[in-house]
């Protein structure tokens, strides 16, 4: 007889003297601290399946969930693509990652999975905005109360949405209460800390959702082990015009004003001279740390670091970009425009200048919800954000995106494009990328455009 208990994000397995642990031995580690066998909570399904198939008696005291009759509301009709994706996930024993571009209906796929599995489900998301959005949609779709973990909420229901941060903290207490766990934007999961959210849950069924699954280091393997393999994949260009809105991308190079150009060159020279004199190699993964370390130690280090920040700031938020933003707002008057920046300072500078709403991590939950609701309703035509709107947020009405500044990350750039691609009748999406001429921004822009979504139009 085997007894399985859930213990702070792990499984405790007790084996009666007469029983042999052989069938599940590969998953068990003897814990001398307590004189019992322990296993990773995520191995729960495998262990139970082995015992069941081997005809071995066991007492499952780990599982603290029962079937739930979740039903999709009648008005929700799956698209063929979503049916296909669900079938692929089912075929992968309900453990796998679906790769779909923004706007292709990843959230609805998850809801189909919830209705299919009929077990309490936890949806894990990267931001508070997404938590709110998911909770609202789940409540509308299933007409049941939806719990939230994050941003001050600590309410656990049969359907619960949590941020990754809260899931990591809370999973050791709630990891046995869900049969299905959905990781939205699951490329966030393989991080050293975030992965614990998946490792400490016993959920037998797991679904990962992402538009950009590629991870660094061992991330792909971690994702495969904790969630499952990629079981379904479609890319942006495969769905354009059918499921996604047709789109154009434009890179606009803008000259700096004379005084800006002079200040840029001066600060840039100081920074570059320092880098060269000290042999800093940014091609090396430790290059940035080498630079900041030198800035902290060298007598002129602080001044050099300030020069580095100044040249970056001038290129990112030039007056020419501000003028172009006004031109684009006028050109697209009557449309919904999202403006993206690399940092909060630029976002608030734009908000103050154009007197428009800004959403950053500092925006309180009530106000950010009001901003998004009014933007969707057309009451606010322009919304500025640094990074929090990069992922997941559902604003199908947005048809214009302006990237004022950003990193060299391909993922970030693809996600930003995805914000304006949700389909609507007659919609033509336009993404503008503003680049300060003759500055390092040009190379950063080149780096982030290395994706098939940007190769097909410019």
């Amino acid at each position: 007889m085997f007894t399985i208990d859930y213990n702070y994000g792990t499984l405790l397995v007790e084996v009666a003297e007469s029983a042999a642990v052989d069938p599940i031995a590969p998953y068990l580690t003897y814990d001398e601290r307590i004189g019992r066998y322990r296993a990773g909570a995520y191995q729960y399904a495998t262990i139970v399946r082995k015992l069941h198939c081997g005809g071995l008696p066991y007492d499952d005291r780990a599982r603290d969930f029962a079937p739930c009759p979740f039903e999709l509301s009648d008005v929700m009709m799956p698209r063929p693509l979503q049916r296909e994706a669900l079938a692929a996930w089912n075929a992968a024993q309900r453990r796998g990652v679906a790769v779909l571009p923004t706007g292709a209906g990843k959230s609805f796929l998850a809801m189909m999975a919830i209705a299919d599995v009929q077990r309490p489900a936890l949806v894990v998301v990267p931001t508070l905005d997404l938590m709110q959005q998911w909770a609202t949609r789940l409540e509308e779709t299933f007409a049941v109360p939806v719990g939230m973990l994050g941003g001050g909420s600590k309410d656990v229901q049969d359907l619960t949405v949590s941020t990754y941060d809260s899931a990591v903290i809370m999973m050791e207490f709630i990891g046995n209460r869900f049969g299905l766990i959905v990781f939205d934007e699951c490329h966030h999961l393989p991080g050293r800390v975030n992965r614990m959210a998946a490792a400490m849950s016993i959920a037998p069924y797991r679904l990962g959702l992402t538009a950009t699954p590629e991870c660094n280091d061992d991330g792909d393997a971690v994702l495969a082990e904790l969630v499952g393999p990629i079981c379904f994949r479609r890319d942006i260009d495969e769905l354009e015009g059918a499921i996604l809105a047709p789109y154009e991308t434009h890179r606009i190079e803008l000259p700096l004003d004379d005084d800006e150009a002079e200040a840029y060159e001066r600060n840039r020279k100081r920074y570059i001279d320092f880098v060269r004199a000290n042999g800093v190699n940014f091609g090396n993964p430790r290059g940035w740390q080498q630079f900041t370390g030198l800035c902290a130690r060298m007598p002129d280090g602080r001044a050099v670091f300030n020069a580095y920040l100044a040249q970056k700031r001038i290129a990112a938020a030039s007056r020419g970009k501000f003028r172009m933003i006004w031109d684009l707002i006028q050109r697209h008057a009557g449309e919904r425009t999202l403006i993206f920046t690399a940092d909060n300072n630029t976002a608030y500078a734009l908000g103050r200048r154009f007197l428009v709403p800004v959403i950053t991590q500092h925006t309180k939950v009530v106000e950010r919800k009001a901003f998004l609701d009014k933007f969707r309703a057309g009451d606010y035509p322009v919304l500025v954000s640094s990074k929090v709107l990069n992922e997941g947020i559902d604003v199908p009405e947005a048809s214009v995106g302006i990237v004022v500044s950003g990193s060299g990350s391909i993922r970030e750039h693809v996600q930003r494009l995805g914000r304006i691609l949700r389909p609507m009748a007659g919609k033509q999406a336009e993404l503008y990328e503003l680049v300060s001429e003759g500055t390092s921004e040009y190379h950063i822009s080149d780096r982030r455009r290395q994706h098939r979504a940007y190769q097909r139009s410019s």
Partner: protein
Amino acid sequence: MLTKDLLRFRIIKGTVKPQFVDTDNAMLLQLAEELLTIYRQPGVSRGEIADVVEPALNCIRDRKLACGLEKLLQDRAKFGHAEDVDFAEHRSRLFADSANLLGRAAGMSFEAYREQVLADAGDIDIYQDLPENERLVRFRDLQPQQLLERYNCAQVQSLLLQAQSLTLTIDEPEAANLRRLMKYLKFFRLLATIHRDDTKRKKKATDESRLRIVIDGPASVLGNTGKYGLQLASFFPAVCSLSKWRLETTVSVRNGQEVRLVADQKLGLVSAYRNFSAYVPEEIGMFHRHFRETVGDWTIVGETPFIDSGDQELVFPDFSFENVDGGRVHLELFHRWHGTQLLQRLVFGAANPDLPLIIGVDRSLLSKPEIEGALEGNSWFAANGFLFRDYPTVNKVRKCLENRLACTTL
């Protein structure tokens, strides 16, 4: 705690050496006082604090140290906004106006647009409620020397954030201190493997008892995990309260470089946790004397062991007795502040009837109905326990010891 960039340490032969500060250093005490003075002004904004702090930070050669002290003060401060101004409402009105104009912005000059939107609202900062404008509403004050002590402790704590487990060696452990340590372990959901360590005794032939405790989390046994770093760091101040201890672990610093971290009581680190339960009443000495003089067939054993029943249930007896035939029985006392532990022990005792353990319960605990109810009719307590007032008499202990021995013999 301190962020990675504020840690001050050297690495010598694979061992990380935190750069502690002298808590009596007059210059540092003055700097601490200056920083504290800034944070003691209610209503000051984050931006104003930054403006005043900056010169103070520049005055000291070691800026990282000064920033570290300031970080600890930030952690003790709570900021908020004046409730009489509703910035969100103000923005809502302004954005309604701006949206209205933007909808028909084609052909309009930027200057005309701004002028029209701001005609009613006035040209004020619409994002005045950002964090840098928040004002200090509460500050948990402390003395300059305490701030330096917290800084030293935080240096080790912040390194422990990167640890996966730690090994603690405790010399001459006292039951009350160990009990307290275990309380913190449970509170932080950590697990311990405890061994008696005889290494030193063999070398120096001293009478010292030594415990070796490996501390990590439930999932640690399944593989390396950084999940428990924060719990280990939070637990650390409880270690500093011990009289003789040594901590050893491996932490990762600077791009994942793995180094040893060693700390012990000689560093003089001061715990920020208040010690309520390590109080040892002077009646203990009297009890020892009286027991020796009046009880011939039992002796109090010199060292206090712990009883490990497995499953992380540890008993730290207040006394251990040995009779002339070599039989050993342990006594654990429950005073008025041990109500919760008593209830746990009653369950534990009933489940482990073979343990040579007796308990004494202060009558004051009977004022709690749940405890009175738990003791009433409890057969394990009837056979292995007794009640006392303030401190047990030798006579009661002797009777209970004999009773326990008789049960064991039967």
